[in-house]
């Protein structure tokens, strides 16, 4: 027999899902990110023209998602390091909530600065 969502529906599992999905998406984004920065090899103009393309609202929304993914992976990763390397404490269960709060704060700060 296989488990379904009822067995998985608890905070630590959701934290895992966020961590795995954000990690995979960030890995997929990295080559693109590096390629864009590499445009600067052809001089400032190449990078500048790409940056002007990113001024579109849809791209800015995409960038916000990236900031969200990155901060989620960071906060979730620090949570994992604390779970694995610090002595076990009851308060560590609250780490997922702290990670979520930190993630949202970072994304919000990005959005407010972009607007």
């Amino acid at each position: 027999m296989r488990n379904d969502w009822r067995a998985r529906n608890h905070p630590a599992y959701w934290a895992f899902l966020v961590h795995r999905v954000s990690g995979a998406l960030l890995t997929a984004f990295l080559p693109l990110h590096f390629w864009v920065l590499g445009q600067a090899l052809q001089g400032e103009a190449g990078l500048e023209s790409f940056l002007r393309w990113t001024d579109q609202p849809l791209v800015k929304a995409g960038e916000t998602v990236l900031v969200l993914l990155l901060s989620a992976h960071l906060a979730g990763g620090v949570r994992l390091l604390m779970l694995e390397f610090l002595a076990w404490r009851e308060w560590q269960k609250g780490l997922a909530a702290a990670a979520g709060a930190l993630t949202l704060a970072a994304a919000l700060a990005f959005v407010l600065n972009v607007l």
Partner: protein
Amino acid sequence: MTTLRVKVWRGAENGRFQEFEVPRLESQTVLDVVTHIQRSLDPTLSYRFACRVGMCGSCAMTVNGRARWTCRTHVANVAADNSLEIAPLANLPVVKDLVADMTLFFDKWAKARGKFHPTKTRRDGFARVAPDSAERLLVDAAIECIGCSVCYSSCDVVAWNPDYLGPAALNRAWTLHNDVRDGARRERLAAVAGDAGCHACHTHMSCSERCPKQLAPTASIAGLKRATAAAALKGEL
């Protein structure tokens, strides 16, 4: 009188749910419900239990989607709308109805070197382990496992990586690793390390979430991760 609508898994892996109506009683446990069905409605129903008081670890089943010890699970806490779905434990082969085949589960305890390796004989004196020593406290935190397999059935890594030893076996290995009388600690660390061992754990914490004894196998596995990594970096593994 209120009745419970109870869906019970029948058959082996390719079985199906069969519906029963069971009278709702005060202080009724899920095991009481299964027992009522077997004694009064369908004597061919197979299920497993022994002590009925949460000690033996034989009556675990999947109740409304979650692995639970049925003898200590009150219907009042799990059947909000008077309906129950009872299935055999996940991640194990089904023998028949509610009986899961525990062979692999216990084989993995053996693979994880879950056996005590004495360093003294019966002619030696008793070992003295101070109750407040660091190792003994770590053992205390993890020793109350009843081998019910609720953690193993709740763990997704077990399903995704069939060689994974699973939370119960690794928790057992951790208690022995901290047993100062044990003489096979390095061999045990070698047995529980790597992609099929403690390093496969992704801290889903489903084991710790569902353990009826409220143990935290995730914490034990984290301890093994650190101990094995330290041993590997020192060149001992």
